[in-house]
């Protein structure tokens, strides 16, 4: 059994607080209106980007097959990626845990005596809590994606994987800037706010010792790291400082360069409704002799953090098809209501519910798979067709499994099992598989319907209790048939 260290335990505790977080955030009307408005906007953007339903379906199918092919070959492709990257002069590091990843990065920075880092947007670095780790070691980290910059300034975490500060409206951002940036005059003009942020960041790019970025696609055949972004901050982070460290999960590897265009096209359209992002960076080596810019050293840290557990099971492996577009959360009625922070996990929303159990264990996350109506909106929009509702069901099954000596498929399986609930389902099955017991129970329910309580826990906090019928459908049909038979008999007589 994996033992959590300090950082991991912190995340596990925050995921365990799901219920309390939900109560807190459902009651925050401003937060709810921020999410509803933003999700409506993003759903509209996506819709307008896919005007042809057939084309969208064909592209989804194509991209699903690309990701599935790459996952089947994952171990081989990772080796190939390492070979190609090293040939290109990019050093590869393997990290099984978030702590290992942080240690590797801290060491690389220390070797260059680095004191300041500018970061491009990277959810994997959120996963490792890299900023906290480096700050504790006196390395200053500055987020350079505008959303991440806002979140960092507010001492918060991203509430969405594409739009980290989507939980804040422009008035809140204006106040945040006014409170934290010297000389900033309160303004809710979005252009003014962005210009303010960009001015501060511009200087930092030029001063930083190290640039850290994520990766959207790592191409095995060519040893290329692809980075999708809109603000140009990714390009600055990966070209100005002498040391560039990229960090990503092992599932981001693709086999061929030709796999990238369809995935990119689906990614930007699913995420923000853009036909193409403003920037698309392809990093294939450090600065070569005679070149005038680019980092002198490039490193890639490949993180596992529970992904190989998902990989080992054919059904759960589909979780790793994800290209992190965020469409599932934009369309999720639960995410829209509770927002991203309530999940208590780095990845919120439907994808967070299915990936977080591998990172934190089902014991810390057993509330996540059940927090879904299985409405299927996520699976319907997922660009790589991850059957998210089906995986949620599977996780529920793993969560309520009885304890056994068999090797565990998932860390923390069985953690959501309650003996009382298990007994109830056992009895339920016995009643519903036996016509006699079922008829008896329905007879009881309808004849004693006056005993139906008026209060039914959470159900009746916003609804009246349903009232059983006086007679069941079974009985009414039986009575109708008896009447017909009698009429038939009388008619013959």
């Amino acid at each position, binding site marked *: 059994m994996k033992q959590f260290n300090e950082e991991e335990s912190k995340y596990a505790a925050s995921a365990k607080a799901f219920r309390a977080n*939900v*109560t807190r955030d*459902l009651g925050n009307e401003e937060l709810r209106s921020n999410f509803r408005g933003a999700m409506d906007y993003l759903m509209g953007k996506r*819709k307008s980007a*896919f005007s042809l*339903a057939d084309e*969208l*379906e064909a592209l989804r199918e194509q991209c699903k097959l690309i990701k599935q092919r790459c996952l089947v070959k994952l171990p081989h492709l990772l080796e190939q990626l390492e070979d190609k990257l090293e040939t290109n002069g990019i050093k590869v590091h393997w990290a099984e845990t978030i702590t290992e990843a942080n240690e590797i990065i801290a060491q690389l920075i220390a070797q260059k005596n680095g004191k300041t880092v500018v970061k491009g947007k990277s959810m994997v670095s959120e996963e490792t809590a890299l900023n906290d780790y480096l700050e504790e070691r006196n390395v200053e980290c500055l987020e350079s994606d505008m959303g991440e910059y806002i979140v960092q300034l507010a001492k918060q975490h991203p509430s969405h994987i594409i739009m980290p500060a989507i939980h804040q409206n422009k008035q809140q951002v204006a106040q945040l800037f006014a409170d934290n940036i010297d000389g900033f005059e309160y303004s809710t003009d979005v252009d003014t706010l962005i210009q303010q942020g960009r001015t501060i960041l511009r200087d930092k790019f030029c001063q930083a010792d190290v640039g850290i970025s994520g990766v959207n696609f790592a191409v095995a055949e060519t040893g290329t790291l692809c980075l999708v972004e809109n603000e140009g901050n990714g390009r600055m982070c990966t070209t100005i400082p002498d040391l560039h460290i990229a960090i990503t999960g092992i599932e981001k590897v693709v086999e061929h360069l030709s796999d990238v265009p369809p995935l990119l096209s689906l990614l930007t359209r699913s995420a923000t409704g853009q036909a193409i992002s403003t920037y698309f960076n392809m990093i294939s080596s450090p600065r070569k002799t005679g070149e005038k810019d680019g980092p002198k050293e490039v490193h890639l840290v490949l993180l596992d953090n529970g992904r190989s557990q998902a990989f080992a099971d054919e059904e759960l492996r589909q979780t790793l098809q994800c290209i992190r577009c965020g469409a599932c959360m934009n369309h999720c*009625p*639960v995410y829209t*209501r*509770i927002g991203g922070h309530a999940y208590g996990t780095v990845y919120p929303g439907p994808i967070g519910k299915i990936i977080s159990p591998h990172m934190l264990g089902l014991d810390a996350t057993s509330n996540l798979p*059940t*927090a*879904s*109506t*299985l*409405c*299927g*909106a996520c699976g*319907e929009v997922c660009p790589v067709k991850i059957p998210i509702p089906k995986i949620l*069901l599977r996780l*529920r*099954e*793993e*969560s*309520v499994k009885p304890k056994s000596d068999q090797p565990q498929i998932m860390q923390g399986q069985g953690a*959501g099992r309650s003996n009382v609930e298990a007994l109830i*389902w*056992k009895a*339920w*099955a016995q*009643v*519903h*598989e036996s*016509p006699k017991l*079922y008829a008896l129970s*329905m007879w009881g*329910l*309808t004849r004693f319907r006056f005993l139906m309580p008026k209060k039914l*826990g*959470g*159900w*009746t*906090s*916003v*609804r*009246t*209790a*349903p*009232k*059983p*019928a006086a007679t*069941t*459908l*079974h*009985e009414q*049909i*039986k009575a*109708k048939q008896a009447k017909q038979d009698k009429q038939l008999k009388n008619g013959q007589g």
Partner: protein
Amino acid sequence: MQQVNTQHLRNYPKKPKQVYLFGTCIVDSFFPDSGMDAIELLEREGIEVIYPQGQSCCGQPAYNSGYKDEAKAVALAQVRQFPLDIPVVVISGSCGGMMRHHYLDLLGDSVGENAEINNFCQRVFEFTEFLVNVLRLKPIDQGPNERVALHTSCAARREMGVHITGNKLISQLANVELVLHDYESECCGFGGTFAVKHADISAAMVADKSKNLVASDVVRYVSADHGCMMNINGALDYQNESLRGEHIASYLLNRIKGKATKAVL
């Protein structure tokens, strides 16, 4: 943009002489009138309806809670109740989706005879799907002019295409104006045990759904799923709103007969 879901594309049989009805446990115990109305509607079309008395529940509650063995036992008991090679008409989109799409996955390996399960799944039709695509029902509307909304359960929409067939049936009613409510495709927040396990999230969802239905200024809303309606009607009743939902079987029958429809809870 209409989402294309290839699951809906299927070959429909000719109009049969006999069908089975799967009534669902919720209709059986709480809303038997909807079941009786569905039978009357089918019989008016000259179809003999067989209702096996041994049926109970599709197994979905246990299946959705992760209790697969329990769901399996109940699902298999249902399959055995419908042996004849005739359509099984289900008056709930979500139970229909369970029986059509999830039974093979659930029972496939345990029975040895996959063919039996597969044959059963192929015979399952959601009620409005059956009316539109097999019976090709053309309801003659004798009711008064009125505005109604349609609420489609998520499973019905995404697994059975009921937003298309339900819409088609209501649209054929000459005196009825079908009104699209805001966030029409969004979940009502029922989700079976979800409504109990995560009652506060469910409450937030049904608050929005009921608000949007009321705002659409209709005399009633119609649905093919009593699960959703138990949730939404319960919320409307709690809020002292007069709007109620009615099962599409009852609604259609009453429109055809020119009878005023009654509110159900």
